[in-house]
């Protein structure tokens, strides 16, 4: 992977925002999707009740997860699906490898799965001589560019079509300069069709797993999950424990919300219900923990497990739209990524809960009503308490506490600030002040509000 994991969100975002034209375009493209979501949701008068129902169903899931897991496992087994349990990424990857190895499969096709991205499955299998091809167009583009996805629904939303044209020229031999989206899609369709037809192993993610029936639902627009699965000898599905829903009828609630929240579509083109292997085929399902049981135990953060991965919190987030998904240095980026990531590694992701203005727009669009901005705020407190906050932040907070602790301190600090901004502006307008980067500092007012009020009161 190209990305350096040591840099924090602010420095990675700094690189992204250097290209102002790209930032504006990226911002606009995502806001356009947010607007499509608004139009779609407003056509459903009961939209808010649907969100409430979805959130309540997910509360029931996380509070009865133990029993639903057992019920789901029993039904999968009855349906002829082999069930595996994985504590972490390594165990998950080793299970996939052992399934493929038993069948002497050396090439696998994969549809979109953020979980396997999180587990770095492709890298693991490639080291062991198994080639994996991502079949979702956006993920395929990211794979040939050796970059992780920058958005969970739109993996290459940060790339311009000319850049994709260049990648296709290099990897698929298209004419140099070809950048028409339809032409590029046709080339990928032809290339990947051959992949689907020749792969004996296929892996998919899972959108919803029904405890009551032991089936799982995979949603795509491209049809890639079905092309891979129905042509395979061995079909593997990887899912996080939190993907369970109690009953089949609950799919009506979640499928009504998912695509409308994600892209403004009334439903994804394909909502495929997988239950039993076809004759001669093997089906495996891997239940993955990888930090989920730990998050379940965090009272303030367990609601993050309700997430149905629609991406609407990213599309609406002013910080995400202007900093790009890759600046979050985590598979799941944006506001939801910033509340999931610190659970995985608090030190490494200590910067992410700060990549937010706490404006609350994410919580307002979330189809399962996760209190995302509230959790971001809570994570900041947790991070400071655990001693993972950056030094500059800790110092800044101390300075702010002193300034606000007495009216005298506040007045002197205000006077000093205004004096500097008027008389020697370069003291604040320089590269050592992070607020000055890519921004102009405002002109300071001549006097404080308190001074203005005192003067005007005397006049009367």
């Amino acid at each position, binding site marked *: 992977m190209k990305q350096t994991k040591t840099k924090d969100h602010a420095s990675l975002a700094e690189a992204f925002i250097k290209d102002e034209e790209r930032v504006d375009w990226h911002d606009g493209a995502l806001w356009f999707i947010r607007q499509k979501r608004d139009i779609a949701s407003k056509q459903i008068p009961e939209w808010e009740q649907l969100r409430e129902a979805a959130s309540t169903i997910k509360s029931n899931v996380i509070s009865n997860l133990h029993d639903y897991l057992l019920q789901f496992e029993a039904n999968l087994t009855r349906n002829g699906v082999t069930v595996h349990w994985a504590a972490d990424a390594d165990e998950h990857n080793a299970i996939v490898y052992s399934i493929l190895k038993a069948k002497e499969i050396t090439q696998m096709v994969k549809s979109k799965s953020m979980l396997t991205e999180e587990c770095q499955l492709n890298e693991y299998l490639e080291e062991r001589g198994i080639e994996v091809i991502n079949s979702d*167009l956006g993920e395929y583009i990211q794979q040939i560019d050796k970059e992780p996805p920058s958005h969970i629904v739109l993996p290459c939303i940060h*790339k311009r079509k000319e850049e994709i044209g260049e990648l296709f020229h290099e990897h698929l031999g298209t004419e140099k300069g070809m950048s028409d*989206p*339809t032409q590029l899609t046709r080339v990928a369709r032809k290339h990947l069709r051959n992949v689907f037809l020749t792969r004996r192993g296929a892996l998919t993610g899972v959108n919803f797993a029904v405890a009551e029936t032991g089936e799982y639902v995979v949603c795509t627009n491209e049809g890639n999950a079905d*092309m891979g699965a129905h042509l395979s000898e061995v079909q593997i599905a990887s899912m996080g424990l939190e993907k369970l829903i109690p009953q*089949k009828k609950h799919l009506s*609630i979640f499928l009504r919300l998912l695509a409308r929240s994600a892209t403004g579509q009334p439903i994804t*083109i394909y*909502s495929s219900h997988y*239950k039993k292997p076809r004759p001669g085929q093997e089906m495996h399902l891997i239940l993955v923990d990888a930090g989920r049981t730990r998050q379940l135990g965090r009272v303030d953060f367990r609601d993050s497990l309700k997430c149905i991965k629609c991406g609407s919190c990213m599309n609406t987030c002013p910080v995400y739209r202007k900093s790009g998904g890759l600046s979050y240095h985590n598979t799941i980026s944006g506001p939801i990524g910033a509340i999931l990531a610190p659970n995985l590694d608090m030190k490494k992701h200590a910067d992410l809960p700060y990549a937010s203005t706490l404006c609350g727009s994410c919580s307002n669009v979330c189809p399962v009503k996760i209190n995302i901005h509230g959790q971001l705020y809570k994570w900041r407190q947790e991070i400071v308490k655990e001693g993972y906050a950056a030094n500059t932040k800790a110092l800044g907070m101390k300075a702010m506490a002193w300034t606000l602790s007495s009216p005298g301190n506040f007045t002197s600090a205000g006077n000093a600030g205004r004096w500097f901004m008027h008389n020697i502006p370069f003291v604040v307008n320089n590269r050592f002040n992070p607020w000055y980067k890519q921004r102009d500092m405002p002109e300071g007012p001549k006097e404080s509000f308190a001074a203005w009020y005192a003067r005007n009161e005397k006049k009367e």
Partner: protein
Amino acid sequence: MNNAFILSNYQSKHMNTREKILEAVLKNQPAATALPDITMFKGDSAGLVERYMAIFATIGGAVHLVETLEEVKELLAKNFDSSRRIVTTLPELAGMAELISVAVDPHRYEDTELAIIRGDFCVAENGAVWLTEDLMGQRIIPYICQHLAVIINAEAIVPTLHEAYDRIGTGDFGFSGFIGGPSKTADIEQALVLGAHGPLTMTVFIMK
């Protein structure tokens, strides 16, 4: 070491993870909360044919209201290349298409230009058609064909997904799914392209 030992060794390691996860879940899950009542979610059952047709057109599909299979045949002959491979599950269409065999290797349908199948029912709010594997002939058919045509009875249109799942019940199908239009992608600069990996077009015939 005999095989039984290796197997039990594998199982014990495997059981370990399973037990550990289940134990952690039980320990960490909050006090149980109840499921909500969702029976009040219902759609409007007026004008279903018109509403279905309008929405299906907006998602890039083609839709025709017909009275006989003869009309279906005429429209298909006019719109698709009959010199290429056409497959169907409908014995009535044997004259224009080859019958799908459940016994054939699914890869053999790779060159299918057009597949004509029946759908169980469709949904007015989103244009999706509900298909079960028996109606597909083979699971791969509605995904691998270049063009998909589905025939639905006009009485088989439900308002929303709530009525859809009421109708499906817990139905025991090895594979089933909703298909709501031709495959699509907008992964390149959000430009909508119809025909990603699945069919390039989808036509629905509503049979009165």
